[in-house]
């Protein structure tokens, strides 16, 4: 008999619910089991005590406490929740009524970026100047010109001068733009030189088989051979070499024959001016006004041996 079965039998025995068979089974088990015997004895004693008429009357007459309804069972939880709500409400109201303290927050504010307005310098329509002003005035500018072309281009120097002067004149006094930085100025002068020389030149000499070959730089032409100056245009430009004139377009090559060159050093002067119309070749002054390239000249040196 398990403990659960034993307890059930005892409970039902005490309540008088056991059948005769179950009762006999319980008693037989009690004879074999001392613990059950003890329990049965105690229960029997209690049953007899409870069977006392006075005890029974007292127990039955005593008013039982009324079973609490749902509202009574929930009374204390509801009251507790209400109290908590009231306390929380008071706390929140006090929090809201208190003036809000300023919050000190450290913040790093970056320096406002000044917008630098570009200085509008009135640039001249052309950088051309009269050929009379051919002497370079600044050593550094000449060095830049030499570095780029290794010759003295009067037109380029004049153009650089004009650009620098116009730039300086346009900039307000005391501003950094009034004294442009050296790199910027160098670049500006280089661009001016490139713009001022709108053509490329090379000497060519005729071989014995009738073909023309280019003379290397600083090379010497053999005496007695026909020599010519090849001019390749970068822009539309009117070119004059000696008494020969021609209009050279971008990428086009024009040849100027150089007859009668004896042994020794020779200087060949080439002049050019911007042009747009073939007719302007006849008049350099007109070409200079109508073309995009400014006028200029170079002195080329040729050695004949």
């Amino acid at each position: 008999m398990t403990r659960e079965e034993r307890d059930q039998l005892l409970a039902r025995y005490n309540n008088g619910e056991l059948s005769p068979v179950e009762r006999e089974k319980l008693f037989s088990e009690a004879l074999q089991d001392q613990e059950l015997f003890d329990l049965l004895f105690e229960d029997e004693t209690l049953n007899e005590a409870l069977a006392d008429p006075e005890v029974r009357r007292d127990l039955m007459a005593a008013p039982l406490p009324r079973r609490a309804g749902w509202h009574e069972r929930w009374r204390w939880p509801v009251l507790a929740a209400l109290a908590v709500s009231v306390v929380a409400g008071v706390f929140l109201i006090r929090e809201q009524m208190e003036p809000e303290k300023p919050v000190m927050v450290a913040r790093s504010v970056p320096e406002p970026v000044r917008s630098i307005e570009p200085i509008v310098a009135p640039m001249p329509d052309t950088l051309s100047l009269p050929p009379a002003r051919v002497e370079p005035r600044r050593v550094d500018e000449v060095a830049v010109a030499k570095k780029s072309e290794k010759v003295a281009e009067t037109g380029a120097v004049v153009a650089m001068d004009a650009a620098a002067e116009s730039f300086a004149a346009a900039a307000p006094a005391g501003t950094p733009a009034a004294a442009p930085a050296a790199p910027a100025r160098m670049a500006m002068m280089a661009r001016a030189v490139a713009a001022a020389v709108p053509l490329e030149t090379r000497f060519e000499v005729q071989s014995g088989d009738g073909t023309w070959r280019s003379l290397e730089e600083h090379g010497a032409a053999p005496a007695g051979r026909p020599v010519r100056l090849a001019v390749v245009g970068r822009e539309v430009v009117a070119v004059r070499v000696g008494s020969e004139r021609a209009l050279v377009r971008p990428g086009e090559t024009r040849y100027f024959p150089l007859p009668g060159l004896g042994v020794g050093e020779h200087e060949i002067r080439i002049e050019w001016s911007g042009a747009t119309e073939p007719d302007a070749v006849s008049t350099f002054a007109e070409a200079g006004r109508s073309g995009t390239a400014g006028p200029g000249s170079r002195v080329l040196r040729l050695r004949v041996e």
Partner: protein
Amino acid sequence: MQRDAILSLLRERILAFAASRLRSAAAEDLAQETMLLLHEKYGHLDRLEDLLPVAFRIVRFKMAAHVRKRARRGEAGAADVTEVALASPDPDPEKAAVAAETREALRAALAGLGERCRELLRLKLAGRTFAEIREHFGAASVNTVYTWDLRCRNQLKASLHHILGDRP
């Protein structure tokens, strides 16, 4: 089971029970006196279902008398079991005293019971079965009611130490 076998086992159980609650010598006397009374006065009973309740009543009375006698310091000696009128319906002063003591102790114990225990006892005294009690309380199963009943009865039993002696 034969009567002799029943009485033999019964004596063994009574002796063990009494020995756990009383001194060993008193337990021997109690068991012996109970068996003597069962033999002399209740020799006509030979079924376990009849003998066991009678034996319980005799042991209960003997134990109560022993406890009361032990309480009365200086007064020793075993009670004359032949003078215990168990079969007599007449009120016996000793029995009346035990009953009164039991009643008072039980009243005090009942007052200390919880609401559910008291209601459970009332329902049982009113003749309700455990199934009806389970329905009354809305318990999930009748085993739950058995457990409640066991706890309640254990509380009441604790108040009857003047009869049951001190538990081991």
